[in-house]
């Protein structure tokens, strides 16, 4: 691995996550993939290791790191299982809007429990008719005195049902289009807030993906993040800082696949020699390693840019997510190829990584949407 000149704390996070990944996650990854149970024992181990507080300020019980620290952790954990790691990473996605837009009171109320891993968070934008087109959101929020009444259904929500704290985007004024959306913090247990269907997925099966149903759900106005009408800004800014996290998940899945494939190629003997001695395999491994390193360099640079406080990071953030997830899909597919027939069998973890990788090209904005974001910024920059 290239030397990214990590500081002492970042190395500590990386090493501890490596230990968690190898000792706690790797031995149970296949089982959770099969049963689709929520990996509470692992979540508890991550909480005990303080890993849920990596990017939360110290005043709220965290370690005071930033996006880079979260990325390092997500990458290392994803090497063992991208699905289990998502339970962790999705909680960061849910708390990012609180970190970015929360008032002091909101931060004080929600962040300490999230930093301690006592509670998980989730972010709810997607609806059956509103995927890439987030402006098509149907969930409504009607003001009534000191409250808003939420009605509608969110779906495909990661950590749905298992998280305690949800940031939900709803239309408070449909006539205003995108400017009519508002972000609310909704706690599990709020009257009128229930959970629907749990999805049966191709990959990341340890992670729960579920429907959220709001039926005359009363949310106090203090739970608005930022202001009424800021829902889309909250969403976009959240994705700007969370996309390097998805990219890191993809990176970790890819790096885990390369490591396994390289190891297997030295053990697998055909024509009297380990297959690692064949140029056809060597070149595949070389390409996989190069693409992984390029993805890592892009992610770390983007994360450092965000942590340094650079204002507009949409383009770089989208690039990191786009590139790393495409790399993950290619690398995991090639890893299956190196494992040959065994790679196709569920007995080996190669096929699981390929299944887990696919989602990273789809969620938090499809890779087509990422290209839109990148192109839009490019054109804006050219107009200057």
């Amino acid at each position, binding site marked *: 691995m290239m030397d990214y000149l990590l500081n002492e*704390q970042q190395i*500590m*996070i990386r090493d*501890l996550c490596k*230990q*968690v990944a190898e*000792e*706690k996650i790797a031995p149970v990854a296949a089982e959770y993939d099969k049963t689709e149970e929520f990996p509470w024992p692992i979540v508890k*181990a991550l909480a*005990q*290791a*303080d*890993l849920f*507080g*990596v990017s939360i300020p110290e005043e709220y019980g965290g*370690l005071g790191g930033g996006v880079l620290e979260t990325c390092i952790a997500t990458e290392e954990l994803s090497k063992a299982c991208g699905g289990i790691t998502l339970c962790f990473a999705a909680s960061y996605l849910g708390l990012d809007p609180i970190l970015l837009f929360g008032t002091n009171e909101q931060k004080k109320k929600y962040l300490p429990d999230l930093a301690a891993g006592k509670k998980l968070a989730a972010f709810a934008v997607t609806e059956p008719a509103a995927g890439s087109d987030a402006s098509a959101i149907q969930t409504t929020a009607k003001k009534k005195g000191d409250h808003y009444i939420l009605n509608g259904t969110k779906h495909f929500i990661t950590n749905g049902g298992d998280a305690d704290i949800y940031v939900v985007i709803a239309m408070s004024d449909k006539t205003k289009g995108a400017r009519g959306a508002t972000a609310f913090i909704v706690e599990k247990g709020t009257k009128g807030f229930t959970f629907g269907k749990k999805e049966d997925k191709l990959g990341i099966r340890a992670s729960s993906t579920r429907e959220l149903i709001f039926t005359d759900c009363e949310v106090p106005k203090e739970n608005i993040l930022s202001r009424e009408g800021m829902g889309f800004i909250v969403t976009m800014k959240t994705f700007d800082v969370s996309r390097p996290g998805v990219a890191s998940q993809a990176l970790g899945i890819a790096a885990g696949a390369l490591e396994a494939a390289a190891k297997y190629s030295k053990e697998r003997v055909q024509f009297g020699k380990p297959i690692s001695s064949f140029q056809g395999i060597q070149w595949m491994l070389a390409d996989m390693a190069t693409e992984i390193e390029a993805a890592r360099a892009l992610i770390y640079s983007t994360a450092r840019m965000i942590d340094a406080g650079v204002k507009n990071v949409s383009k770089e953030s989208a690039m990191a997510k786009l590139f790393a997830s495409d790399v993950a899909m290619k690398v995991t597919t090639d890893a299956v190829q190196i494992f040959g027939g065994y790679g196709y069998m569920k007995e080996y973890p190669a096929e699981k990584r390929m299944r887990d990788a696919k989602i990273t090209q789809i969620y938090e904005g499809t890779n087509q949407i990422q290209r839109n974001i990148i192109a839009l910024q490019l054109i804006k920059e050219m107009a200057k």
Partner: protein
Amino acid sequence: MNNIVVCIKQVPDTADVKINPETNTLVREGVKSIINPFDMYAIEEAVRLKEKTGAKTIVITMGPPQAEAALKEAISMGIDEAYLVSDRAFAGSDTLATSYTLANAIKKTGEFSVILCGKQASDGDTAQVGPGISTHLDIPQVTYVKKIEEFKDNTARVERMTEEGFEILEAPLPCLFTVVKEINEPRLPSLKGIMRSKSAKIKLLNAQELDIEADRLGLKGSPTQVVKIFSPERRKGGEIFNCAAEEAAEKLVNILKDSLH
């Protein structure tokens, strides 16, 4: 509740132990040192008892200066304070001298209610130091503890593994427990723990600081003599007599007779 003291030992990682066939001693060069795996359960149990009772936890080890790394690892798992019992005078200690030294060192750490040890160390495998400490301190001991049920009226109620099953015992505090791996699942270090361990001050206790008799220390205080260490020969597979019982018995008797000569 008074302090909970955990005794640990730094040992070579058993995953890559090699024996020098000429000297029949452990090859220690280049072998990673770890906390004795059984002691990890003792550390975990101490941290759990601390979380339950609020008692202060103390880790103690006797060994060379590099054993500090083992103490720091214990701190990163949540132990509060660490003592390194280290002196050239302790070199060559057997289990009697070690338990004598440790017992005296534990007295220096303050009032304690519970002492926890792993059931044995993975290098020596004697399982003697824990019981030795309790004898020197004149406190009760329960070995092979698989569950600490509760503390009530200065008494501990524990489950002790036996070959047939388990016993439920009550012991007055202070008491020493040696624990087995069934007792818990050791946690990983935490980030805050690791940071704390980096700046933690390890308290050093040398021979002078302990009120002990010099001739009971180290090689001098160690009546155990290691006559020979060797890798046991691999047992050959048995032989099956495919014949009538009487004939087989006769063959067996002859083989046994021959082996006596």
